[in-house]
């Protein structure tokens, strides 16, 4: 490993410094400073509408903040030129809340899309890699199906396979278990945990599902009213006696 690579491996996966993002007069993300470490699964928890998804979009450069700086995988997201930002995004994968699968493409073609369009991979290699990814997410037989012929859990799995196609260093999950039944949610949690353990990648998961966070998180943060209320190792957050943390974790009306 070169010195530069070593230094880059030591920088946080995502670092936000005093970031504020407003929609109209309301600060959805309010002066947030946060550092997410590499090689771990970090879960950002919080009630709906507290800026969790906005945080992910800021980290990827899909949204621009009014104040503060964002560094992702060592790149200054809002100081980068457009081509640098596009190159940075190729080092990330993202699983969207609604999966964002291409409806007119089969499962196979959805997963193959980034390989064909971004990496211009040769077709035999595309076939090998897609088969491998569908195997990884437990859907080896469904390559020919269209996304609307799949269940919610199967769509999540396809979206994860597509997010992993370019062998990203960082994978972002926006509410991966939202809208799924408890059994399917548990299987997605297990898939996320197994995949992270096997590949050692950096996973950042945005969710309001406390049970899911308890299974997959190494680190956890609680976002309340656009601010990071508490951040640290999962055990520390879970053991916190802060009344607002307890109210959220015990699902009491705050």
């Amino acid at each position, binding site marked *: 490993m070169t010195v530069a690579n070593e230094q880059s491996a030591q920088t946080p996966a995502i670092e936000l410094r005093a970031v504020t993002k407003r929609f109209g007069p309301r600060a959805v993300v309010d002066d947030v400073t946060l550092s997410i470490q590499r090689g771990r699964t970090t879960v950002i928890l919080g009630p709906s509408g507290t800026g969790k998804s906005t945080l992910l979009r800021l980290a990827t450069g899909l949204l621009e903040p009014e104040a503060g700086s964002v560094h992702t995988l060592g790149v200054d997201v809002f100081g980068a030129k457009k081509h640098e930002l*596009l190159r940075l995004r*190729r080092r*990330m994968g993202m699983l969207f809340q609604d999966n*964002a699968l*291409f409806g007119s493409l089969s499962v196979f073609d959805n997963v193959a*899309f*980034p390989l064909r*369009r*971004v990496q211009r991979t040769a077709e035999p290699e595309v076939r090998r890699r897609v088969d491998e990814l569908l195997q990884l997410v437990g859907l080896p037989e469904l390559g020919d199906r269209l996304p609307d012929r799949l269940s919610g859990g199967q769509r999540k799995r396809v979206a994860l396979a597509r997010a992993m196609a370019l062998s990203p260093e960082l994978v972002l999950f926006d509410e991966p278990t939202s809208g799924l039944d408890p059994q399917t949610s548990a299987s997605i949690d297990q898939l996320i945990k197994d995949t992270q353990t096997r590949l050692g990648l950096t996973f950042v998961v945005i969710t309001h599902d406390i049970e899911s966070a308890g299974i997959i998180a190494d680190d956890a943060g609680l976002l309340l009213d656009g601010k990071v209320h508490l951040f640290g190792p999962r055990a520390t957050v879970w053991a916190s006696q802060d009344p607002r943390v307890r109210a959220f974790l015990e699902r009491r009306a705050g």
Partner: protein
Amino acid sequence: MIPQVLLPLMLPAFALRATAAILRGPPLKDTVLLVSRVILRSLPVVVIICFFCGAMLTVQAAASLAPFGALRMSGLIVGFGGVREVFPLLAGGALASRTGAEIASQLQAMRVTRQVEALEMMGLDPLVLLVAPRLIACVVAGPVCVFAAMVSGLVGGQVIGQFQLGIDRSAMWATLLSAVGVGDLVVGLIKGVVLGFVVGVVACYEGSIVAEGGARGVGAAANRAVVRGMVLVCLSCLGLSALIYGRFL
């Protein structure tokens, strides 16, 4: 947020960015498929509308010229007015309503279901991947539609002139074609390119901007693409006619 005063500049700015995206090499296979799709879907509408319009123009021309004993000259009006103005305008309108609405709703549906964000997250530029092929398709389809509109309109005039008004077949063709020169054909094709560009830019812009969410946003985008596309088609036709034919006045 973009200041309100800058909103009228958004469309020209988008047109520049979309044109620049064409130069960055949109995917060939998608572009070829879209070109054939746009032409195949727009042509039937263009042909039908212009056939009947050519027939109607002939009837009106005949009604005006018959009292002066000049019924046989009806084709001249269809030749001049139809080929130079009405048929290209109708072709542009048909392109806006058939293809513009489809492009805007398709892109807006991809935006609201976050498929566009998914492309951006793969490090791909939606302008190159989605907008440029659609714009090229409209620019190629424009002159094809205008040419088809001219032929279909003339045939409509010929059919009504020959079978309803009883004008001699060869005389009708002769008057229809006497009004149409090679220059008119070239101008028509240039108009087609401009109208295709206008329809494509408006449709892609309406499909790409952040609008209302969900199904309502998709419907509204399609609606705006048709309405604004048609208004700009009319303005473009007027501007081009004034520019090209105005100097002979």
